[in-house]
Every structure is written in C-alpha cells, then in structure tokens.
C-alpha cells in the first residue's frame, strides 16, 4: 500500500498536512535551486495554517 492509497477518511486531512510538511521541509535539496517565489511561500504558509486548523477540528470531533 502507499501513502496515497492507504489514507482513510479520518487520516486524509492529516495525510495532506504530512505531505505538505515533507514536500516543503524534507527531501534532497539542490543547493540554491529551490524556486518557490516569496509570494508563493506566503500562500503556502497560509494554506498550511488553514489545513492545520481544519485537522485540529476534525480530530477533536
């Protein structure tokens, strides 16, 4: 099974947060070649905060 196929309804939102967390802060880095523009970083940060709030709510229900 894979991360994409194994996610259950309860963990689907958590899986998305885990994915974005890994894609943005994990993985091999090409020195000096990370190309996220400043405006995009702000947008991503905002999206992640919204998602985390949604996950908190989902997990507390």
């Amino acid at each position: 099974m894979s991360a994409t196929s194994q996610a259950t309804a309860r963990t689907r939102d958590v899986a998305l947060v885990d994915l974005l967390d890994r894609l943005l802060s994990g993985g091999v880095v090409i020195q000096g070649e990370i190309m996220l523009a400043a405006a995009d970083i702000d947008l991503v940060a905002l999206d992640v905060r919204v998602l985390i709030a949604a996950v908190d709510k989902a997990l507390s229900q």
Partner: protein
Amino acid sequence: MTLLVYAVTDRPPLGELPPGVEGAPVWTISHAGLSALVSRHETAPVIDERSGWAYEQVIESGMAQAAVLPMRFGSTLADRDAVVQWLDERARELSGVLERIRDRVEVSVRAVWAQGDETAAQVGTGREYMEARLEPERRARALRERIGQALDPLADASRYRLLVRPSAPVTAAFLVPRRATETFVARAAELDRELAEADLTCTGPWPAYSFVGSDNA
C-alpha cells in the same frame, strides 16, 4: 523552460511512470549510475494540494520499483546538462544516502492532546504563568519518551519535533524496514489505545523525505 526533479534512484524504474505535476510526462536522466526523475515546465511549478499529490505519486511509483531519494518540492534545474552535472557532483553522497534508505519507508506519527486534556492557560500570577508555560513542555517531553520507548525499537531511525502547535505535543517521523511496516503501524495503534492523554495518527508509508536531507547525510 526548466526541469522539475522528483527523485533520484540508482536504476531507472522498470515500469511506466504516472503523469507528473500539471500532467507533464515524467522521464529519467541517467548519469554516474544514478537516474533523476524529471518533467519539463515553462516555469517552476507552485505547490498546492493537486500538484503535491501528483508529485508524490510519481515518487511512490518509483519507490514501488527501486530505492528512491525524494527531492524537496520545487527543486529545479535548467536542462539535461545541468541534471547530469548535478548527479556527477553529488553521486557519492546520493549513493550513500540511497544505501541507507534502501528497503525502508517513512512512517509519520502525529500526537494531539486528547479532547479536554489541554492545559488551561488562563492564569493570574507570574509564577502560575511560568508553570503554565513549562507544563506543556514537560508533558510533551514525557509523551515523546513514551512514544520512543514503544516505537524506536521497531525503526532504524527517528526524528521528533515537540509542540509544533500547542495542541500537537509530538510530531515524529520513523524510518522503518519495509517488511516491518505493518508491525510498526499495529504497535502505533496499540500505543494510541494505551495513551489516555493523547491521540496518535499514523500516515504512510512515505518516501524517506525526513531522512535524506543534508543534515541526515
């Protein structure tokens, strides 16, 4: 034009790869015994839910066929020559990390405080304020110890972050032998039932994103 790099493997994936970010075809560029999975784009792709999962599915497809080093999203190089030069410069390092994560997967474990178990922060005196601030840290460290005792013996490596949010005392990643994944997840589920103060959520198996960075080399 730019090439988005998804992952590096020490052999080209045997089967066909799914479409990549923005539906772009994915192919491999090989050099020095390594292959980079890439797709071509007009400009560097922006991450969102759709592009993130597309990126992940390409890497998982490669992971099903060979050991792969996932790249951080947004890693781009100008063209084929730049990819070849990069593989040439980093070949020894990349091969070493590939060996360390071969036949292993990453499993994520997130702990949140159980509902109604969050420490009240409404306090009056300075001493109460300090104690209220220290208490979550003490409790998070204790929970991290408990999780470590249960799960570290089943993993080859682990990484922990404490209190990334007030409601999330422990965020952890484990590098687990692929054949032991089910045992690991079962133990995590058992631990979740044992813990009254926190709820654990497990996701994965992921490519080893948290164990391939330069600080893990």
